[in-house]
């Protein structure tokens, strides 16, 4: 009995192995042939596209190009995506016309596909080629799976209007599992236009992690109009929010913030102290030099590190102070840190 099973297994495996080998080989041949053919089509398309892009009139030739090449959709998509990377501004208009005349309808259809990967591929094309009136299709995808939702949000940032920004902020506020990196990328793409929405959200009782991102964005986008909204978080009970407030204040560079930051250098949490010291370094307020000097003698490494670089940011005066501290013998840790900062400054200058 066992012999028969083994014999059958042998025959079966031999057949399977041979079939798999032939399949791999045949697939390789077919793919190589298709790649060669696609390459030829791609080159021909590229020549035509360059003519369209360098012509005076974008609309007519672009539509003619789309009519001519719409049959080879996969190659056309690749070409459009490649040129989308290389072009910017008004030069993108012919690509949009080609997209609308050739593949837009199909992409819209495939946005409703049951397959996640198909939906994702098509949303990604909309990231590059969408128009404001298409926001309605993208908004529908905001209730899809997280990966689709993010791609749709990315597409919406490309056609940002007051309505779409409102949708984005609503979604962020109500998102149960927000991907903060993606949202920060989106907010950053939207730029300073988000100030009113950011102000409104900062005044809402959102969870600390969401508030932390909003505070961070206020600093990153240099929204000085939000100074008052940010500074009130410097006394918040949540440590993370105090850190973010200190960081944003170091970016906003509002002179009045030096008093708040000096107060934060005495915070019970060393992370807050370290961030406040760093921001004071950015602020370069001469009155805060003694605070930075004192921080260089802190028992915490991060505080000393930020204080060292903070002093270096003051230029010659800071460097002289660092030299003095590096020579003193009372606190070896402060001396070592000062020596390291000076050494890095010299090396960076040399590089």
């Amino acid at each position, binding site marked *: 009995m*066992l*012999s028969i099973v*083994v*014999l059958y*297994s*042998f025959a079966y*495996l*031999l057949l*399977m*192995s041979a079939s*798999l*080998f032939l*399949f*791999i*080989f045949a*697939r*390789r*041949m077919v793919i190589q042939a298709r790649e060669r053919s696609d390459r030829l089509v791609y080159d021909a398309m590229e020549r035509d596209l360059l003519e369209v892009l360098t012509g005076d009139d974008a609309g007519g030739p672009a539509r003619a190009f789309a009519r001519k090449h719409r049959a080879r959709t996969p190659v056309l*998509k690749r070409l459009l*995506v490649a040129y989308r*990377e290389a072009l910017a501004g008004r030069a993108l208009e012919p690509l949009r016309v080609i997209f609308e005349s050739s593949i837009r309808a199909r992409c819209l259809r495939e946005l409703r596909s049951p397959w*996640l*990967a*198909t939906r*994702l*591929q098509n949303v*990604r*094309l909309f990231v590059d080629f969408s128009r404001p009136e298409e926001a309605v299709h993208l908004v529908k995808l905001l209730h899809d799976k997280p*990966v689709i939702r*993010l791609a749709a949000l990315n597409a919406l940032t490309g056609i940002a209007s007051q309505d779409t920004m409102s949708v984005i902020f609503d979604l962020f506020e109500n998102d149960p599992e927000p*991907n*903060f*990196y*993606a949202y*920060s*990328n989106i907010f*950053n*793409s939207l730029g300073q236009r988000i100030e009113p929405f950011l102000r409104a959200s900062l005044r809402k009782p959102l969870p600390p992690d969401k508030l932390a991102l909003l505070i*961070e964005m206020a600093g*990153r986008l240099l929204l000085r109009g939000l100074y008052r909204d940010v500074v009130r978080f410097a006394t918040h009970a949540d440590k993370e929010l105090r850190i973010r407030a200190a960081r944003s204040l170091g970016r906003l560079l509002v002179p009045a913030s030096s008093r708040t930051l000096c107060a934060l250098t005495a915070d019970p949490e060393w992370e807050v102290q370290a961030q406040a010291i760093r921001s004071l370094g950015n602020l370069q307020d001469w009155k805060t030099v003694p605070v930075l000097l004192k921080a260089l003698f802190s028992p915490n*490494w991060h505080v000393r590190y930020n204080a060292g670089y903070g002093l270096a940011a003051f230029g010659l005066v800071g460097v002289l102070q660092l030299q003095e501290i590096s020579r003193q013998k009372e606190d070896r*840790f402060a001396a*070592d*840190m000062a*020596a*390291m900062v*000076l*050494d*890095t400054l010299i*090396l*960076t200058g*040399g*590089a």
Partner: protein
Amino acid sequence: MADILRLLVTGTESLILAYFLLLNTFYFLFNLLSLAGILRYRRLVTFVRFGEIFRMPIVKPVSVIVPAFNEGKGIVQSIRSLLSLRYPVFEVVVVNDGSTDDTLARLSEAFDLRLSKAVFRRSVPTQPIRGIYRSAVQPKLIVVDKVNGKKADAMNAGLNVSRYPLFCAVDGDSVLEQDALLKTVRPFLEDPERTIGAGGIIRLSNGCEVRDGQVVRVGMPRNWIARFQILEYLRAFLGGRLGMAMMRSTLIVSGAFGIFRKDIAMACGGYREASITEDLDLVVRMQKHMHERKKPFRISFIPDPICWTEAPESLKVLARQRSRWHRGLIQTLVRFRGMIFNPRYGVAGLFAMPFYAVFEMAGPFIEVLGYALFLGHIAVGRVDYPFAVTFFFVAVFYGTFVSLLAILLEELSSHRYPRPRDILTLTAAGVAENLFYRQYLSLVRAWSILDYLKGKNEWGAMEKRGFAKAGQAP
């Protein structure tokens, strides 16, 4: 008495057969899962622009840590490859672990190193550091010169000196493809709270042409031992690890190329110096740490980013390497035995650890036991030769079938071997490895338990030929 003995032998043979069947069923399932995973990954990354990470304002910077012990022949090429990586913010921390060759001198000459007065937090204890050097021509490069410890100690020194929240462990004899970091870091951006580690595929640079720190031509080595290993790596990474990752059972992120969250690694105490395979040990500890704190996490495996490394081309060196890997596996499984079949540790405890214990750790012993029984049968003249020969061919063709599946997965994923002749060579290697190579490695791995019990803890030197010579026949 004779009846009892016969019963015992028959029972053992049946157990070995059942084991063979079960093991191969698992491998087949992993391959199917990997196939699904690769097809899904291919579709998910269509039209993804990895370069968009450059425009992300708060993308996490990465410290690439490279422990180097006597890597003089290939270190400059490796570091050039790392410095030419496409990534917005990163630093390369090379840790010269008390090399006795000219590793430091070569680095110093190639990158104009200057002794720096850098001070750092000694978050994890290491052997004393002799000096920290910065390059006058490459601001991203930091070289740490320290007293010799082990690889884990060198990694810990790198962790202490590194500045960024993610770190990438790369071997000193490895070459990364330019986009490898961009692609591997993506899970940390998509799911930053839960992702604690991510690994990519390791490929063998034997037979490839490496120029200016990049693999410019992929080819097959002339050495058959290296060819067998190419196939083994394809099976292990594309068939095994991707399949395990699909089941959320990743237990290994290769030390040759993996990215981790530094805060979690530090919370676990960094790399453990006493460990023989520090990469496996760290990943298991990180998982244990997250499970015990009831924090959701994931460790991703990306089938696309590629790290090229040099494989041994002599049986002696290969045996040393495999013995160490197996001793490391035994050590880790014994050390974390409390996790095995423990529901507290999720899939890792209920599936991954038992799988590694039963099939990866015990596999070579069962295989060697089978060979011993067969030899015993020959000695007493009780061999059913037609059955034995057919069974042998079943084993050979099953091995070949799994190898062909791995080749198919390679074709579907990164498709790095351009010539059809390479498929033929790999298929031939898939058949030929069953004739001596597999048995040899099983014996080496089974023998390693004795070394483990004796407390053997050394690495054994790996003779490096350098990338310039890696493609040439010995």
